[in-house]
């Protein structure tokens, strides 16, 4: 027998918790496109360029982390039956600090102004601290942890590590340290962010949401049970080997070989995802599935760029290879997967909240709740998918010929993010309309009840 974990409407986080994150995220992506339009090829010169760093953090913190924070706070109760404590206040604080933090971090990079970096450290440190602690409490309270809970736990731990490394790097902006340390810190910060926070969260959530929304068979038991936790431990060991190499205690080959084993683990997940998607039961066109496929193929492309690094370095140049590698991981993999998931998570949460509220106030079936496709029509999602695809193709070309393709890339990112925002706003408006219909019917019912009671009292008074 299992525990009867249940969330009442009062305990379940309000819909505004994820909505505020989901609606802000595409605006940061738009700013990333704008940055490319303004600075052109200067934004794609080297991974160390301040403009490139501003661009990267608009995507990683502004878009990816915003969506993932909102989604985790809402998906946790749905998949694990445990809510973040004081979720409304936590979301308000995290959202405010995260938004202010991203703006100040990007300003610090663009204008090389230390006080902005200090403010960014305070805001981002505060936002991620509040988020990590409150989600950790919710995860701790889960009665029977499933693999998604374990995936979320290790992803949250990875986020904490990424944030601490990021704070060190931000501090080095104000108080400079040696290049060797900066290089190691940056690689570790990036590694923990993409492999730990994004990679492990996507993996943990995929085990539930891919079969649930995409009608695929389940992932194999061995993968679900062991892969996420093994990769987290592997990330920790990789961190130790990297530190040992930086201190001159070990050859860099150890960390590289270990990283190869880890990358093979991530590749097995990508290949398995493509395989279960190929064997899905309902072969209806699905835009989320397409986003995920791009994500998985990008992960494979990133592997090829990394594994045959010297070869690709000779063919396209080392700086271009590194930029393309980052582009494949951030834009090709992470951005595609998270963008695709938004098209399932937002309509599902809208449906769930409205159904829940309708039942609580009116009973089942009194207000017809639209299905998920009615919240976010496929036609609009497909158009945005095409723009996203165009942006990815332009990214590859822009890395190879920055002078020609940087601005078209910026334009494509702006267009894609604006359409994404428009699609999300449409779904939110639809949610609000139906929500107010439920409120109206509930108020009408209450008024009828009060009138009925007054009439009854009147009748009793007359008979007395």
């Amino acid at each position, binding site marked *: *027998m299992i525990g009867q974990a249940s*969330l*009442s409407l009062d305990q379940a986080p309000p819909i505004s918790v994820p909505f505020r994150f989901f609606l802000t995220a595409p605006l940061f992506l738009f700013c990333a496109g704008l940055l490319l339009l303004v600075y052109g090829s200067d934004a794609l010169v080297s991974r160390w360029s301040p403009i490139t760093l501003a661009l990267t953090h608009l995507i990683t913190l502004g878009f990816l982390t915003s969506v993932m924070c909102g989604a985790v706070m809402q998906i946790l109760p749905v998949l694990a039956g445990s809510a973040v404590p004081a979720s409304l206040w936590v979301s308000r604080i995290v959202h405010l600090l995260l938004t202010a933090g991203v703006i100040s971090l990007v300003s610090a990079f663009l204008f090389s102004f230390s006080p902005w970096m200090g403010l960014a450290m305070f805001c981002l440190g505060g936002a991620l601290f509040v988020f990590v602690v409150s989600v950790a409490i919710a995860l701790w309270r889960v009665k029977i942890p499933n693999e998604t809970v374990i995936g979320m736990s290790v992803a949250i731990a990875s986020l904490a590590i990424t944030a601490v490394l990021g704070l060190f790097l931000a501090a080095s902006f104000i108080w400079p340290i040696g290049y060797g340390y900066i290089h190691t810190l940056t690689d570790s910060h990036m590694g923990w962010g993409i492999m730990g926070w994004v990679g492990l969260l996507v993996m943990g959530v995929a085990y539930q949401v891919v079969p649930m929304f995409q*009608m695929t068979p389940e992932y194999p038991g061995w993968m679900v049970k062991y892969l996420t936790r093994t990769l987290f431990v592997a990330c920790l060991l990789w961190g130790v080997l990297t530190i040992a190499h930086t201190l001159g205690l070990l050859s860099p080959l150890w960390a590289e070989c270990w990283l190869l084993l880890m990358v093979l683990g991530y590749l097995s997940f990508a290949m398995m995802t493509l395989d279960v998607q190929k064997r899905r039961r309902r072969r209806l066109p699905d835009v989320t599935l397409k986003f995920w496929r791009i994500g998985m193929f990008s992960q494979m492309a990133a592997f090829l760029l990394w594994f045959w690094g010297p070869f690709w370095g000779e063919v396209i140049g080392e700086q271009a290879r590194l930029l393309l590698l980052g582009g494949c991981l951030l834009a090709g993999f992470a951005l595609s997967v998270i963008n695709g998931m938004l098209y399932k998570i937002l309509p*599902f949460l809208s449906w769930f909240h409205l*159904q829940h509220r309708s*039942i609580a106030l009116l009973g089942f079936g009194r207000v017809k709740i639209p299905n998920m496709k009615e919240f976010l029509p496929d036609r609009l999602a497909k158009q945005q998918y095409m723009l996203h695809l165009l942006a990815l193709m332009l990214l590859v070309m822009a890395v190879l010929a920055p002078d020609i393709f940087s601005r078209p890339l910026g334009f494509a990112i702006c267009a894609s993010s604006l359409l994404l925002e428009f699609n999300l706003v449409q779904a939110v408006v639809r949610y609000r309309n139906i929500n107010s219909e439920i409120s109206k019917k509930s108020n009408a019912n209450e008024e009828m009840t009060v009138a009925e009671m007054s009439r009854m009292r009147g009748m009793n008074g007359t008979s007395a």
Partner: protein
Amino acid sequence: MEYRLNVCGLPAPEPMEQILGAVQGLKEGDFLKVSHNREPFPLYSMLNDDGFFYRTIVGGKTGFLIFVWRSDDAKSELAVEASIARENQ
């Protein structure tokens, strides 16, 4: 009377829609036995708000069995207990 519903492999939120629809037809002494391949946490509070009780057990061929009955129906509750006892044997 026991009614059965298998919602395995349906895309979200179809399992919840089908269960919420099916329980509306339950009368005195009836209960619904749902076979599911994952635990439907969000469903529980909706069932409670709509005037139903539920019990979930890990088991059956699909992974989870969810029993649902009207909260004011003691006869159904006894029938559910008996059905769960049979499942646990």
